[in-house]
């Protein structure tokens, strides 16, 4: 679509990110075929066994990947307003750091402490510069979530340092 768009690049050549998506999908389709091929299948089910649908899915993915790649060669499809906005990678990095910290700390420290760290990092990524206040907010919120889920929904969330202090 961007080919006919007067605002887009005057040389609608290969759009790299879109091409990578196409190639990535093709690789995924290949991986599905490979994983399906190594599945041991009982001859009883040889007609429509557990491998038929995976093969169909892989074939579909491969065709779609090629179609996407062709679109990428013709200039890609990413909407113009998406291209114009420069991604704020620093914000994304803080959010991602929060997620990684959370998965690393949830085991040793428990849900509440890990969530408070997540809260502070994500809020920082979104431009908040009040780490202490955010830590308190995050702590209160995650305790509320912890008790809400653990008690009301009966979901057992990993108790840790803070939960034990509160005798939960």
């Amino acid at each position, binding site marked *: 679509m961007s080919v006919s768009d007067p605002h887009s690049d005057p040389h609608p050549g290969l759009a790299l990110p879109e091409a990578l998506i196409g190639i990535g999908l093709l690789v995924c389709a290949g991986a599905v075929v490979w994983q399906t091929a190594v599945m041991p299948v009982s001859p009883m089910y040889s007609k429509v066994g557990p491998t038929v649908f995976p093969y169909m899915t892989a074939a579909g993915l491969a065709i779609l*990947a090629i179609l996407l790649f062709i679109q990428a060669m013709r200039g890609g*499809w990413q909407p113009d307003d998406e291209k114009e906005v420069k991604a704020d990678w620093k914000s994304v990095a803080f959010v991602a750091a929060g997620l990684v910290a959370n*998965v690393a700390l949830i085991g040793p420290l428990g849900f509440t402490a890990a969530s408070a760290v997540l809260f502070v990092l994500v809020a920082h*990524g979104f*431009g908040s510069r009040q780490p202490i206040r955010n830590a308190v907010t995050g702590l209160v919120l995650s305790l509320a979530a912890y008790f809400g*889920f653990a008690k009301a929904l*009966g979901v057992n969330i990993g108790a840790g340092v803070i939960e034990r202090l509160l005798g939960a």
Partner: protein
Amino acid sequence: MDTLSQLAHGFAVALTWQNLLWCLLGTTLGTAIGVLPGLGPALTIALLLPITFQVAPEASFILFAGIYYGAMYGGSTTSILLNTPGESATIVTALEGNKMARSGRGGAALATSAIGSFVAGMIGTLGVAFLAPVVVSFALAFGPAEYFSLMVLAFVMVSAVLGSSAVRGLTSLFVGFFLGMIGVDLQTGQPRFTFGVSELLDGTSMIVAAVGLFAVGETLYVASRRYAGRDEIIPLKGSLYMTAQEWARSWKAWLRGAAIGFPIGALPAGGAEIPTFLSYALEKKLSNHKEEFGTTGAIEGVAGPEAANNASAAGVLVPMLTLGLPTSATAAIMLSAFQSYGINPGPLLLQTQPALVWGLVASLFVANVLLVILNLPLIGLWVRLLKIPAPQLYAGILVFATVGTYGISQSPVDLILLYVLGAMGFLMRRFDFPTAPVIIGMILGPLAETQFRRAMTISNGDWSVFYTHPLSLTLLILALLALLGPRVYGIIVHRRTRGPEHVPGDA
């Protein structure tokens, strides 16, 4: 008459005080998440899925349905006052509603959208009550081949026809198929795509997928465009009362919107976006106040689409309850709630679970009444929710996303999977892939596979069952037409018109 007596029994279920409380909780929560940008009914219901282990099916579905309807009401408030649609189904509302708010008629816009939602929600729910038994009488004749073909048609409709690109929609759907296949094959016990990770034997949890795509993906996406411009909240001015003229301009638009919304929702195509666009176009065409469209804001342009989205939300319940065919991400997650109770939605559901189905339908009437009260006199409360600053809002969303996910299994594997799917959701948003088909493919893919294998087992491996049964053949031809028709038409017209801009998921 049968429907009416069944409905009376339904009200007996819905009007017990426990179920009224569930309904109130659902509608309140639904309105809140509808108002908040970044949160939607699909995500909320996914996070609350563990409740199915705790309470009776009637209670959870009354809660979920309240959330589903409530989000439709709440989303319009955000559209009107903030110009950022709270829900994908309320994008059109923002067009005229926000203009009206800017010219000081925000109160009337909110009123026409709440009352219109009420009128259309009531009509739509009546439609569910009367249409569901009719669909069931047809569906009883369906064999596995027909079911499979019907699902193929639904797949094409939800991924290829609705949305801006058939290729990208289908890609999302196929990724969903793949995610749905992970785990033990139910018919043979063969593990598939578990890559030796024992946590994956149970399959990718619906909660992880929905929360990853909708909450984590959305948060990453919003973070990446932090400086892309902020919308201001327009303070609510003027009374919520509509003038006689505004009533006169609204009521026909409500009825037309409901008439467009319900049938489209009830088709195995679903989606609340298309009917809102159609209704908007129709109102613009019929209006005597064309000059107000896009300038000061025309009330018909709010009334029609708002009615359409609520009626279609009701319509979506028809294929979900009678055929087990979810056509929106929210309906797909509700289907997985049925599965967690060991209940299979389908033509037999109305006979095997009458209290559940009719209790649910009756509770939808109750929900509509509660919602119009929640959304008109109490509107000020919801406006205050809009003032939650983005950093704390999104940080909070991620905290809840983590609880919901970690709580299911207490396994870091699920958290890692959540973040991987979140990264995928982020890329999908950035490159304009719709997310709802992933969820629909994930839940409906395995069901389609089951029907496919059943049909092939009955026919002894003969593929012709799919095209020798007349009904199955018809459905497949319809699917093919839906897939290729627009393309052929486009070539004939020789002009590529873009469909309505895709807006990711009904998260």
